[in-house]
């Protein structure tokens, strides 16, 4: 038996290797098979065009798709009104992604060795999971009247309205006059809602949501959908695009939870052709906002007797209070601004973005406007960069790589370490679409993302590094 054991082991290894290679070959066959199949979601079903017409790789838009969106989800071909569709046609698409993912963070506050103490430890978890569910419904109500409604859930099925708007398109027959009203994605050229990476860390742009460490008075992300009204205009060929929005200072939350403040977002870009390389685009954007620094409060739990003092009088608990929604005052300003370039060299495209942020010293130090600033307080500023490359081998396969960095240029307190909050984020992966269809979409998705934030570990104040690994079947219909 002992003599045969090595032979058996060798056979088992050989069998395992052969099986592994067979699986690998089958996978290769599946991945290399580039037959188109039949079928698309809502707009594709309406117009009979494959996903790849509007998406370089869904959900990322192609210039044709961007133009379609800018025209109010119309091809401007006399078949845009719903009257030209079957009465049963309902412009709805759902998207969801079953996933396996691994999440790891190197410094998480956990129980210490002694009761009541805490310490830092690496925490890693992995397993099968699923994304939230998006119901996209949008299109035209009539020629030049478009809409979009997106109820979106988290993994538990708790829904919120991610997008709710109606749009008047091509007013007075001009592509320069389009008015959108409701809650919508800002006119970000590098759309976070159409991001190609979906992991916990890679599923958003760090630059779009960054706020200096410790800020708690307000929450804002240029990647968040906002509520307001937007004017947008574009040339017929969509080479020139301009937009301006007036928005509630609520970061897109319903019920006017903050103040009566308004904010604005401006964006503009120009595309140009460079030989046979493709369509290049450069643009700029700015968000000018304000946030309240204090609120009126309402008592949620009144004081109650909790004992008696030395004189026998009652000792009362402190009342619990909460902000009264909409009463925020003492607004202080902030802004985000940036430049973007989208560069194409045939199948390779690179998006470059420079980002600059500034917050009032009050916001940076969590100081109500009716209180003096702490000694040494200053307005935090930072600069960021994004470099994202895609190699689109064909409409079915895309390689994705993104590096982002954020560097604080001025801390809220001069005494803070210069690099406190600096971020480096790397994400890479691929999406493979086994079929391209005019009815539905499906993608094999694999992605890895790692983010390092300087000196933000909860106890030690050392660097915090987290990573995500994700495999998923991303589908919509």
């Amino acid at each position, binding site marked *: 038996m002992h003599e045969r054991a090595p032979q058996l082991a060798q056979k088992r290894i050989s069998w395992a290797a052969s099986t592994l290679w067979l699986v690998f070959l089958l996978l*290769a066959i599946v991945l290399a098979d580039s037959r*188109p199949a039949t079928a698309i979601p809502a707009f594709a079903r*309406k117009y009979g065009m*494959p996903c790849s*017409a509007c998406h370089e790789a869904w959900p990322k838009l192609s210039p*044709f798709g961007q133009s379609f969106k800018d025209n109010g989800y119309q091809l401007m071909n*006399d078949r845009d*009104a719903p009257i030209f569709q079957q009465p049963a046609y309902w412009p709805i698409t759902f998207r969801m992604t079953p996933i396996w993912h691994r999440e790891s963070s190197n410094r998480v506050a956990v129980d210490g060795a002694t009761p009541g103490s805490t310490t830092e430890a690496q925490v890693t978890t992995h397993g099968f999971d699923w994304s939230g569910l998006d119901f996209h419904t949008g299109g035209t109500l009539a020629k030049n009247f478009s809409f979009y409604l997106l109820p979106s859930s988290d993994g538990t099925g708790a829904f919120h309205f991610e997008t709710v708007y109606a749009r008047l398109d091509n007013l007075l027959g001009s592509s320069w006059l389009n008015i959108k009203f409701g809650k919508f994605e800002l006119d970000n050229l590098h759309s976070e809602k159409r991001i190609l990476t979906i992991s916990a860390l890679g599923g958003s742009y760090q630059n779009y949501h960054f706020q200096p460490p410790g800020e708690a008075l307000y929450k804002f992300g240029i990647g968040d959908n906002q509520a307001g009204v937007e004017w947008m205009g574009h040339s017929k060929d969509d080479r020139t695009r301009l937009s301006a929005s007036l928005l509630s200072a609520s970061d897109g939350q319903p019920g006017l939870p903050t103040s009566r403040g308004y904010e604005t977002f401006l964006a503009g870009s120009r595309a140009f052709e460079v030989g*046979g390389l493709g369509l290049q685009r450069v643009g700029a954007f700015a968000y000018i906002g304000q946030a309240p620094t204090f609120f009126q409060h309402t008592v949620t739990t009144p004081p109650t007797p909790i004992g008696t003092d030395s004189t026998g009088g009652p000792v009362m608990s402190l009342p619990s209070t909460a902000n009264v929604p909409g009463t925020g005052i003492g607004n202080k300003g902030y802004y985000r601004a940036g430049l973007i370039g989208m560069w194409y060299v045939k199948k390779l495209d690179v998006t470059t973005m420079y980002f600059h942020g500034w917050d009032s010293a009050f916001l940076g130090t969590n100081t109500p406007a009716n209180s003096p600033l702490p000694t040494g307080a200053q307005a935090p500023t930072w600069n960021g960069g994004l470099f994202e490359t895609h190699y689109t081998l064909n409409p079915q396969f895309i390689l994705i790589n993104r590096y982002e960095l954020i560097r604080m240029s001025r801390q809220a307190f001069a005494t803070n370490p210069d690099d406190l909050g600096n971020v480096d984020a790397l994400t890479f992966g691929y999406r493979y679409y086994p079929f391209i269809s005019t009815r539905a979409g499906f993608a094999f998705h694999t992605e890895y993302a790692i983010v390092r934030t300087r000196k933000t570990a909860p106890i030690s104040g050392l660097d915090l590094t987290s990573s995500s690994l994700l495999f998923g079947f991303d589908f919509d219909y």
Partner: protein
Amino acid sequence: MRTLRFFKYFLVVVAVLSLPSPSPAQQMESHIGKLTGHSESGKQLFYRYCWGCHGFRGDGNGENWLPTGSYPYMPYLNIQPRNFVAGTFKCRSTQTGSLPTDQDLYNTLVRGVVNSNMPSWITLTAQNRADLIAFIKTFSARWKNDKPGDPINVPAEPKLTAESIKHGQELFQKLECWKCHGQEGFGDGPSASTLTDSNDQPIRPYNFAVGSRFKCGATNQDLYKIFMTGLDGTPMPSFADVIKPDDAWDLVHFLRTLQVTHKSPELTLWGSTKEGAAQIASRKVSGTPTGSGIKQ
């Protein structure tokens, strides 16, 4: 070593399967001004943008085309997408029966085709459009064996007069345009319901009352070319051998007056005459907008 061998097999399999799928073999070029389009580049674009309607083989049988029998209830398209294999094209500057020029095809891509699902592809780069045209030409042997015809001569447009419009109106009757397009230009002539295209699919005559654009352009020159070259593959013939250029321009001027919702010099002039004003008033319909975007 075994692992290495398997890896070699793997690479070979991937390489073989990554080869382009079978397609029309010949390489074609297109020439649009200074641009040269290449079919190899156009192929990738075709299989990104076009095959849903025009079909994987370019025969107009994309997965959204529903053939005869579903008309007029076809939900997605009511005109069969162009069959590139047949090599017959509606919008040309060349004589009937001849191939269009590359520029003609390019113009169609830029413009789109009104009253169909074919959109404008103006958002593509000029090079992309040139490449697509080169690839479209690989579907039919006609592009290998024939040459595009010479563009017809479009003489300068004569001065617009009420007499010119009146004469055009007489030609509209004499040439029996009304049989298909209807006396009022609504596309509802007595023959309208019987018309089929070269694929035996029902086809509707153009309704002048509902738009400003024509199938192959929006200008008077485009309209002149439409009936002097005909729309090949449709019942719309060429009138080049039937009428003289001056008569053709008179017809252009009259047809413009049938577009009662589109402000044009022809409509204004014709509306200033007693006869014209009465005709225009009888063609206009006022009421609640329908939401179709089509002016009534």
